[in-house]
């Protein structure tokens, strides 16, 4: 055994390790600063909290070839228009509730969490709520006492977590806000609840077809 080849030299690799780590880390810091404006509330991809005053939908975008949130006309949550500050307080209360009740230990949010119960990213516009007229009340009632409200044939139920009326409403606000985040098309192929102004399920045949295409913004 003669000398160590240059490529097997200890000091070469020590230096490489330091440089590679340093450069990667600096790039990560740079990218983080670049990303923050996208993900701050009211940022490029994440809406401000007062978006809960609007109708929120999720539609396939022909240009992007993916599903994207569509923010529509005024549709205040629980019939009450909120300022950005009020909306933030409400959503924050809801977010705190999801943490204190540990929702993520059964559900996923934005696809992260546990896999025992459905993803909540788009739960606000999930067709399972039936109609947009009853949705708010149904969601609140479900959160407050879910144990007898099954969505499946295998008997999997959500436990009663002691969620109060205020917490339930705030949680709905949080879920509505979350559904407006641009998640680059996750979940894919999701068919949202019919939120057109025509009465939904029992729509008379005479309902004007034009009403289905809701105005995109006011």
């Amino acid at each position: 055994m003669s000398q160590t080849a240059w490529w097997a030299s200890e000091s070469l690799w020590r230096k490489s390790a330091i440089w590679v780590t340093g450069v990667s880390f600096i790039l990560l810091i740079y990218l983080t600063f670049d990303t923050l404006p996208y993900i701050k509330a009211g940022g490029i991809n994440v809406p401000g909290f007062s978006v809960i005053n609007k109708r929120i939908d999720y539609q396939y975008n022909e240009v992007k070839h993916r599903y994207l949130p569509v923010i529509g006309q005024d549709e205040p949550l629980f019939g009450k228009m909120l300022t950005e500050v009020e909306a933030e307080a409400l959503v924050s209360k809801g977010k705190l509730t999801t943490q204190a009740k540990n929702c993520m230990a059964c559900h996923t949010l934005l696809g992260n969490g546990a896999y025992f119960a459905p993803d909540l990213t788009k739960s606000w516009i999930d067709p399972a709520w039936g109609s947009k007229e009853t949705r708010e009340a149904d969601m609140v009632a479900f959160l407050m006492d879910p144990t007898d409200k099954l969505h499946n044939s295998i008997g999997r139920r959500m436990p009663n977590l002691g969620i109060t009326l205020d917490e339930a409403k705030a949680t709905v606000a949080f879920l509505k806000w979350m559904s407006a985040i641009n998640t680059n098309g996750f979940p894919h192929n999701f068919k949202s609840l019919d939120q057109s102004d025509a009465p939904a399920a029992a729509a008379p045949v005479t309902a004007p077809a034009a009403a289905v295409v809701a105005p995109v913004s006011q």
Partner: protein
Amino acid sequence: MTALGIFSSANLNGGQKLAMKYFAVSLALFGAQILFGLLAGLQFLMPDFLFGVVDFSVNRTLHVNALVIWLLYGFMGGVYFILEDEAKHPIVGLGLGNLIFWVLTSAVVIVILVYLLVQVGPGEMSSIWLINEGREYIEAPRWADIGITISMLVFFFNVFATFSKGRYTGIGGVLVLDLLALAGLYVFGMFYTPNISMDQFWWWWVIHLWVEATWEVLVGCIMAYMLIDTMGVRRKIVETWLYIEVALMFGSGILGLGHHYFWIGTPEYWFTIGGFFSALEPIPLVAMVVHAIFDAGVHKMKNKNHPALGWTIAQAAGNFFGAGVFGFMHTLPQINLYTHGTQWTASHGHLAFFGAYSTAVIGFFYLAAQKARGNVWMSGNLPGNGWKWKWAMALLWIGMIGMTMALLIAGYEQSQIERAIEGSTWMGYFAAQEHPWFIQAMVWRQLSGYGFLLGYILLVWDLLTIGKGETRPAQVVETGTH
């Protein structure tokens, strides 16, 4: 030193005595992890089982938290175990280290009891501070976060000061810097924000930069020592490899963080960055396999601790398959769109954590068992041909592979039925959960879990008895020329 074959702390140096305490708690929490995993798994099959008493969410939280804590305890034990020998100096601040062990352990016990008995709180900051933060893996309430951070700083002080007073080796230098990063990252998980995108952005700094960067390097350090100690591999070789691994691991893993930034509100360019760099992450893992096999081959498998070497090779292979292969499978955004948050993720999570980290800690348990009995013989020709350690290992692996494969099948089924066909609605979710293929997979996961439990029981029995009454000293390994 007492007689060979007798389990006595007189056989150990100061750091190793402390390490034994960490190992004991670690092994017990490993058992707790399995127990709560089995309960959670059973609730997939029998949803009414313990419903409203110890719900799935509680079992799962305990399962994953016990996992994180027993691995951290195992690592801390591993570091304390090698520290004095590596630095050639008694541990600086050992008294403080001992104190912190008790503080940390009391905190862990309280946190577990609160999870189990209080479970949830009102939607207020007080719940975050006292009960549960509700963020996977780092659910521990804020008061405990602060306690953990302080403990980590004391631990870091022990390591740093001991190397500084003694000698800095290559392993020592990498270890100190890595621990600093590991402890520092934890702080990014300690704030509240109403913004879920912001929340998850920083949450992944902790989770990903732990398991795919700093933990990998930490394990690289302690396994490097293991190779030197049990096989007599030359330090220069091991340390050169360690640097190569650090370069490859951090070079791919730091920006590989981007594979968690596809769908949480982050900009599109993460598709490219996350996909590309995380696709490179298997490379260092291949390098580690090559390294372990090469060393074992060069030394003709001659080594002084067969179970530890067995688990070292298992670590290299498990890391490669669990993290490298199973991670790579769903790391590109084109695939991840359909697999994100399905049982695919759970499949990978199980094989990766077990393959990369549990194996390393178990290897150290064996090293500790050997030293605690006065450095007894643990090479070939063990009583009963070493059937206990061999069967423990076989059962743990069969159980783990069984679970992983079952979850992978469930994941395939979900990505087809729930995602591709049904479009990820609640109905789509349950269409997949109700499907016989899914249910069968859950049955197989559960059965494999019982096999895993048997392996654990055998492992504990073996660790407590191996080397008992052994009169031969450990095989001498000469420091090789390779």
